[in-house]
């Protein structure tokens, strides 16, 4: 809303996030420039000032050329870059760039196809371990100069050749970003799964981050990178994670592959000596305290730490589905998720479900994942019978409560927690997932209560008392757990009375969840076992009885600080110290947001400062300082050990410190930039017969395919295809293709077509439209087609499953599939 320019790429915001897009339209009416770059012309494009058609999978070339231009024409925000980013930091002398190694960085092990040694990507350091810098940005090994070399081949000519975008169009976008960034102006970048669902998705977002850091658009009003996430609480499921590799608040799940056998080892390998993550001892210890209560005190927390299950590899959903296929996973719990139609390569997913001994499906409707044992997709909207007598999987299908039938928080895409009150009871035997998990836990604790085995101690010790004091008034369900108690545990509470002296037995009185005082926020958390906290970043959401800030609904002010609660500490813009210059003054009056108040000697503004509130801008850390004291008063990026915005990532990414263009795992062209064709660190699962890939420039699969959402349906349809209102608006699956491709393949608008990939074939109605256009790539014409992915064989509107076409090559950092850029073929059915 406060942006002067908005670049939307990898997202069809108008159709997938229509209400948020209203803000973009308002900004446009105020004079902001809106740009949309996408393979598919959509309502977002129609309302943009500039629409650029591009080839799916070529994003880093476009963005890399912007970076190249910013660096070479000195169009970056110099003062911001020098002070707030790691542009001046020197990288080790033995670092090898993709320029030196034909598309690979140093440290790549071809045998394991991983960057097993990332030590060369690190900073050059002095004897104290502090990074060396050159504020003049001239040193050949400073990040700035390394970037100049790395992005040298990302030229406008390359954009034209690889993306199919004219140099003029690319320049217009670049120039618009430059003109609308700086002291007086800010630009925002919005993306969605058009970026993430690629085998190099993380690096595309990194490229956007580099642009925004170079232009000084991070931590400022109207700036930033907006991840448009797709589900009501998908952010919440990441923060208080149901993800295999994370504990609450972005602490890693312990792994057996790193030295993390003890709590001390865990802290030293996942925490940091300097910066905000130096607080990890307090956060992990408080989590253990919340989970295991008294038992967490054994060995100062180490005993219960050892109970936490350790990872031994990639246990992500998709990697696990291969394990399932091999019969290694025997039981499966599905909570409102539908892999039989919603996950990539879903034909393989259905086959995997057949290998299970048992599964639990909790949903409002009988979704595909509960019905695969007697039904499968037929032609188009038809279904076919399955021989059930050959499928062993035992299935428990439990009815679930809808969002209006339970209370609790959703966390939206802006990290905002919003509480929902309960309207009515769920029907029949439908129950909330909270009810299910709570009572399942109760029963399991009972079943294991007599065990003396060490493996069962964690479950026995697990604190598990969420009973309501009194049943909910007016509800016929008398054993629904108390959601507010769970929120209290997430927020955190004191385990012992403050300032209490041990009694004569040498033991302190310990509170239970029900009677414990709330902690006011994460600053109160301790590493000595005196506090419990389920997720440190959410601490402060429920700071005292009767004050659930997620349920606060006061719609006032510029930043609406009393509407819901945004983590951390109700900050609305992260790293907002960067909205002031190094001396703490607003960069400009028009973009004033958070600044240093000289009189009061503290940071102030229209948002909660994301910075130690009393640290003056001119603070210089003493030698040997640790924790937050190690950051200067002009280091806004408090989560980073060096307090800088990372243009170059010295640690933590699995596919390189700088974004590099690789072609998609399936591509009609060879990589024009490097010998390395596709992301070297991606997980290909090449020997899997269920996941065959088309070759590069494969004549059988010459067409690029991308998938997307429609406004009227939601993912694979469990929440929409049972609803006549929405089915009337979007009745069936279609494939969008250009008139040129239609003519080439003799396809008529509206008739059935077959789309094929090495994974399978599906049918859809042809939608011949100018919204898709052929592009000239590396001297040849490349066609693209687009498909929504909302259909399946259950519900009141049925159709082929688009995900049956997609493959399962996974991005190396986050194990996401590549559903936004792969290859296919298309032909008419002629019935």
């Amino acid at each position: 809303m406060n942006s002067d320019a908005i670049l939307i790429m990898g997202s069809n915001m108008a159709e997938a996030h229509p209400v948020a897009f209203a803000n973009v339209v308002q900004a446009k009416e105020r004079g902001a420039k809106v740009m949309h770059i996408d393979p598919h012309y959509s309502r977002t494009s129609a309302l943009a000032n500039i629409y650029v058609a591009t080839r799916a999978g070529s994003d880093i070339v476009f963005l890399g050329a912007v970076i190249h231009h910013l660096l070479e024409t000195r169009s970056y925000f110099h003062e911001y870059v020098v002070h707030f980013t790691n542009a001046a930091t020197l990288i080790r002398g033995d670092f090898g760039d993709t320029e030196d190694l034909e598309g690979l960085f140093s440290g790549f092990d071809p045998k394991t196809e991983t960057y097993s040694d990332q030590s060369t990507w690190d900073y050059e350091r002095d004897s104290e371990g502090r990074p060396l810098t050159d504020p003049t940005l001239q040193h050949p090994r400073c990040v700035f100069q390394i970037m100049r070399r790395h992005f040298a081949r990302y030229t406008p000519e390359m954009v034209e050749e690889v993306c199919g975008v004219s140099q003029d169009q690319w320049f217009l976008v670049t120039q618009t970003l430059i003109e609308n960034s700086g002291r007086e102006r800010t630009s925002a970048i919005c993306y969605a799964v058009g970026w993430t669902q690629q085998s190099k998705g993380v690096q595309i977002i990194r490229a956007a981050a580099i642009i925004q850091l170079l232009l000084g658009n991070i931590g400022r009003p109207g700036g930033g990178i907006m991840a448009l996430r797709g589900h009501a609480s998908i952010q919440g499921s990441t923060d208080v994670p149901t993800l295999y590799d994370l504990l609450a608040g972005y602490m890693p799940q312990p792994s057996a592959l790193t030295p993390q056998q003890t709590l001390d080892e865990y802290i030293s390998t996942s925490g940091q000596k300097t910066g905000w993550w130096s607080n990890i001892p307090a956060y992990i210890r408080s989590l253990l305290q919340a989970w295991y209560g008294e038992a967490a005190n054994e060995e100062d927390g180490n005993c219960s730490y050892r109970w936490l299950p350790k990872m031994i590899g990639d246990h992500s959903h998709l990697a696990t589905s291969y394990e399932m296929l091999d019969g290694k996973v025997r039981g499966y719990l599905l909570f409102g998720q539908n892999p039989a139609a919603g996950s990539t390569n879903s034909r393989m997913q259905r086959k995997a479900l057949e290998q299970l001994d048992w599964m639990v499906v909790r949903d409002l409707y009988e979704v595909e994942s509960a019905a695969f044992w007697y039904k499968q997709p037929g032609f188009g909207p038809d279904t076919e019978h399955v021989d059930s007598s050959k499928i062993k999987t035992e299935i428990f299908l439990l009815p679930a409560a809808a969002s209006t039938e339970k209370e609790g928080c959703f966390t939206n895409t802006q990290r905002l927690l919003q509480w929902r009150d309960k309207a009515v009871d769920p029907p029949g035997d439908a129950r909330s997932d909270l009810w299910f998990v709570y009572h399942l836990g109760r029963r399991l604790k009972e079943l294991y209560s007599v065990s003396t085995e060490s493996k069962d101690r964690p479950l026995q010790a697990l604190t598990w008392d969420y009973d309501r004091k009194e049943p909910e008034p007016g509800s016929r369900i008398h054993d629904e757990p108390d959601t507010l108690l769970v929120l209290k545990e997430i927020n955190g509470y004191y385990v012992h009375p403050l300032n209490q002296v041990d009694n004569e037995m040498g033991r302190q009185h310990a509170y239970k969840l029900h009677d414990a005082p709330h902690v006011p926020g994460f600053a109160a958390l301790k590493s000595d076992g005196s506090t419990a906290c389920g997720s440190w970043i959410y601490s402060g959401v429920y700071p005292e009885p009767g004050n659930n800030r997620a349920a606060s609904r006061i719609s006032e002010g510029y930043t609406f600080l009393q509407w819901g609660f945004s983590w951390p500490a109700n900050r609305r813009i992260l790293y907002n110290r960067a909205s002031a210059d190094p001396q703490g003054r607003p960069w400009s009056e028009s973009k004033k947001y958070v600044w240093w108040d000289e009189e009061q000697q503290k940071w102030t503004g229209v948002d909660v400062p994301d910075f130690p509130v009393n640290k003056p801008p001119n603070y210089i850390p003493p030698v040997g300082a640790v924790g937050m004291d190690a950051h200067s008063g002009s280091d806004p990026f408090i989560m980073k050990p060096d307090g800088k915005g990372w243009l170059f990532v010295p640690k933590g990414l699995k596919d390189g410190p700088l974004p590099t263009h690789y072609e998609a795992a399936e591509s009609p062209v060879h990589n024009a930039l490097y010998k390395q064709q596709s992301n070297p660190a991606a997980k290909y699962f090449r020997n899997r017969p269920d996941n065959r890939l088309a070759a590069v420039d494969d004549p059988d699969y010459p067409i690029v395919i991308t998938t997307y959402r429609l406004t009227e349906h939601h993912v694979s349809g469990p929440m929409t295809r049972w609803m006549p209102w929405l089915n009337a608006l979007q009745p069936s699956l279609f494939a969008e293709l250009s008139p040129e491709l239609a003519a080439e393949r003799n396809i008529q608008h509206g008739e059935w077509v077959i789309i094929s990939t090495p994974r399978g074939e599906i049918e859809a109605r042809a939608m011949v439209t100018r919204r898709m256009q052929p592009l000239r790539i590396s001297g040849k014409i490349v066609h693209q087609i687009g498909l929504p992915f909302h259909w399946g064989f259950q519900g009141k509107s049925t159709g082929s499953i688009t995900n049956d076409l997609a493959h399962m090559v996974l991005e190396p950092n986050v194990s996401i599939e590549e559903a936004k850029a792969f290859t296919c073929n298309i032909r008419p059915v002629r019935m």
Partner: protein
Amino acid sequence: MQERLSPAELEFNIPSIVTQAMQVGSKTQPFSSESSKLVTRIRDAKVVHSVCPYCAVGCGLNVYVKDGRVIDIEGNPDSPINHGTLCPKGAATFQYTVNPNRLTHVLHRAPFSDHWEVKSLDWAMEQIAQRIKQTRDETFVKSLPDGREVNHTLGIASLGGATLDVEENYLMKKLLSGGLGIVSIENQARI
């Protein structure tokens, strides 16, 4: 929230130009005394504040409840996110929750069976707990062959949608990971 006006009230409340426009072609309003007494369905309904269950924008909803039933769902005009507006999905939330196709009983499909059987919730909960215990006990690994401690089971996996509440996610991870040692606890948030 302001009530909608009945047609009779409209005449007195809308500026005269609109009134005139409405009267084109007919000086007499075609409202019977019955229709002028009609009131909106949501009058006297309890308003419950909620949030849209679809995308991640987080539009505020007003859920109208009368006689223990949801009778309508609209956008919350007070929300700074949506100002009362909704997209087609959000506007259809009513039909998502009040729908004759919803499951209301536990269904069980035995191995190799060709049909569902209706079961009690209590029976299903006990069976599920038993299955989890059995599989966990048979697949639990304390240490790798080289002695590294793992305390986990890879024999059970969990996958959740991203319409789960924060509190639900929290208890899931706590029980499945912290209590049972399951590693593959995953969510739509991954993909």
